[in-house]
């Protein structure tokens, strides 16, 4: 096994951490006040979210292995980065996710089976973007950052108070579109949060191949306020996101967060990470597990951790059972759906193509299915 090793130059920015690995609160002058008002119940809710999300992720991986999904992109290890950030947003803030933001969509109320229906190949998107204020998931790396920039320009032009949030990974920071999005958002001082989950790997390529500096350091070159946070620390992620959103809502323009985390699983279920990374690195990050971290913190606080864990486990079991039932009984789409919504208005050649094909299918006793 050969592992390409590229050292990332020491960054200028500190990495904000509000919970150490033992779960103790570490003071942070800049971010602490963004946790004001957060109760023990809120922390227990974060725990439930992360436990349920991990279960959703594991169940999806299992369903893929059993042939129920065509592919799955696991988020294992990134639960705090996703839950901490999305729980800091208002429901009216508009999210532009990549394809790994299952936790972001689920936390906004998207049903797990609707999420998975895309990975099953039953549909092109699992939710109504205008219903949950989350754009369709994006597979082309980094393209959605420009959509967030444009949405943010719209907020700025029509005087709204919402924020557009772009989610992407470390690999996407090499894309022209992400860089152009930073230029556009900065130029118009648009309320956009660029939320980068640096999970260390773009399939087989280590983050050092994408950037010779810390990713968060790059944003200041665009004139964009930036934070680097421990992405496995749900409180640090939550507080930094609150800070970034407040910055935008005060009319101060775009912000950037690098949440430093780790992709514990494969890139997708079609990937084999043992070909490019060492188990020691994975184990090193396992010790920084985001769920363990929050459990430790609740223990430090003297909370009844066991009952919170039990509650989370029950919710996870329920979701997994319902998800399995929904996916394994999900009907395939009808042939006419091939042609539905290609155009918003009547398009004669498209209509003719559909009619011709549906007529052709009637030649088969089973309707061509």
């Amino acid at each position, binding site marked *: 096994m050969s592992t390409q090793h590229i050292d990332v130059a020491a960054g200028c920015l500190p990495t904000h951490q509000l919970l150490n690995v033992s779960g103790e609160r570490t003071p942070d002058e800049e971010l602490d006040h963004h946790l004001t008002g957060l109760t023990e119940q809120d922390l227990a809710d974060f725990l439930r979210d992360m436990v349920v999300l991990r279960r959703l992720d594991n169940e999806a991986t299992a369903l893929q292995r059993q042939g129920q999904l065509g592919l799955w992109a696991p988020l294992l290890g990134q639960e705090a980065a996703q839950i901490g950030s999305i729980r800091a947003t208002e429901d009216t803030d*508009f999210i*532009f996710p990549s394809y790994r933001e299952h936790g972001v969509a689920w936390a906004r109320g998207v049903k797990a089976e609707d999420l998975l229906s895309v990975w099953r190949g039953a*549909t*092109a*998107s699992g939710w*109504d*973007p*205008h*219903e949950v204020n989350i*754009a*369709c998931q994006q597979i*082309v790396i980094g*393209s959605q*950052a*420009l*959509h*967030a*920039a*444009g*949405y*943010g*320009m*719209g*907020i*700025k*032009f*029509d005087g709204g108070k919402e924020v*557009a949030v772009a989610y992407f990974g470390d690999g996407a920071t090499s894309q*022209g*579109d992400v860089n*152009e*999005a930073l*230029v*556009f958002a900065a*130029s118009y001082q648009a309320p956009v949060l660029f939320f980068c989950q640096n999970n260390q790997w773009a399939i087989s390529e280590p983050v050092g191949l994408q950037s010779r500096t810390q990713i968060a350091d790059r944003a200041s070159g665009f004139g964009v306020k930036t934070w680097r946070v421990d992405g496995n620390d749900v409180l640090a992620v939550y507080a930094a996101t609150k800070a970034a959103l407040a910055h935008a809502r005060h009319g101060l323009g775009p912000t950037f967060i690098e949440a430093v985390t780790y992709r514990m699983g494969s890139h997708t279920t079609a990937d084999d990470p043992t070909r490019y990374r060492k188990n020691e690195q994975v184990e090193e990050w396992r010790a920084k597990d985001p769920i363990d971290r929050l459990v430790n913190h609740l223990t430090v606080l003297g909370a009844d951790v066991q009952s919170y864990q039990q509650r989370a486990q029950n919710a996870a079991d329920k979701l997994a059972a319902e998800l399995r039932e929904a996916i394994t009984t999900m009907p395939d789409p009808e042939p006419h759906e091939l042609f*539905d*919504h*290609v*155009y*918003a*208005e*009547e*398009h*004669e*050649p*498209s209509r003719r193509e559909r009619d011709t094909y549906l007529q052709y299918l009637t030649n088969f006793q089973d309707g061509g299915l």
Partner: protein
Amino acid sequence: MSVSMMKALNQSLRDALTEDEKVILLGEDIGTLGGVFRITDGLKDEFGEHRVVDTPLAESGIVGSAIGLAYRGYRPVVEIQFDGFTYPAFDQLVSQLAKMHFRSRGRVKMPVTVRIPYGGGIGSPEHHSESPEAYFSHTAGLRVFAPSSVEDAYVMLRQAIACDDPVIFFEPKRRYHEKADIELSTPEQTGSPKAKVLHQGNDVTVVGYGPTVYTLNDAVLAAEDEGVSLEVIDLRCLDPLDLETVAESVKHTGKLVVVHEASRTSGIGAEICAQITETCFDYLEHAPLRVTGFDIPYPPSRLESHHLPDLDKVMHAVDTVMRRNETHAGGAK
């Protein structure tokens, strides 16, 4: 009133901005300068910098941010400065703009108009004279408009902006200064433009769009001198293609010549010839012919007259389908 195509396009944008506050213009140099072709002249002063937006110099950024604005409920009209600068935005056009309505299962509309001044004949350096329309007519989810006349420039731009689908709007920049006596308050039509028979004739159906239509009108007179009657059709819209109008014509002429500046292989002409052969096979008296640009990168301007379809090339093709120059049979470029 005599107006130029530039003025007609300018007025079309002004009327759209006036009628719908969600219409927003984006592009390089379109604000203070009024665009390098002055199509947006005066609009920033009239509607403000939040309606007529000078953008950073990044085409993917322009189209990508227009998609975000459409998500927000805007109706963006973007200008790509020159045809050859469209390609940096290719992913946003083909993988995002074209597919968003389908991807979202009809929940997210993309009423975005992308204006592209295109075509050659103006003595420009590389990347300023291209005809990239076939890329977009090949892409499901996009509509492709290509007006040829001053009147159509006004009306079809209004149609494009009103359309809930993304429209790639090709402006024949070589014809920007053409003038016509028209009333710009032309009633707005809805839907995609249909092909139009510009001149009725009996012998050969000649089909074109955009900058070549003027050449086809010249060909009518040249052919008349030789006793040949041409039926000239301006396609106007390249997606959806209105080939019923073309087929109706071919059914009585039996002969078809398609003309465009873009390269031949896999071009719009290939599609028209294929479909007409499928639908009118029994009516055809000669194989359909194409008069197009060569399959080369757009040449240096001192050579462009060789590359572009002109009256002689069109007439050569007409003679060929009329079997008047059998020694040259096999087509003409």
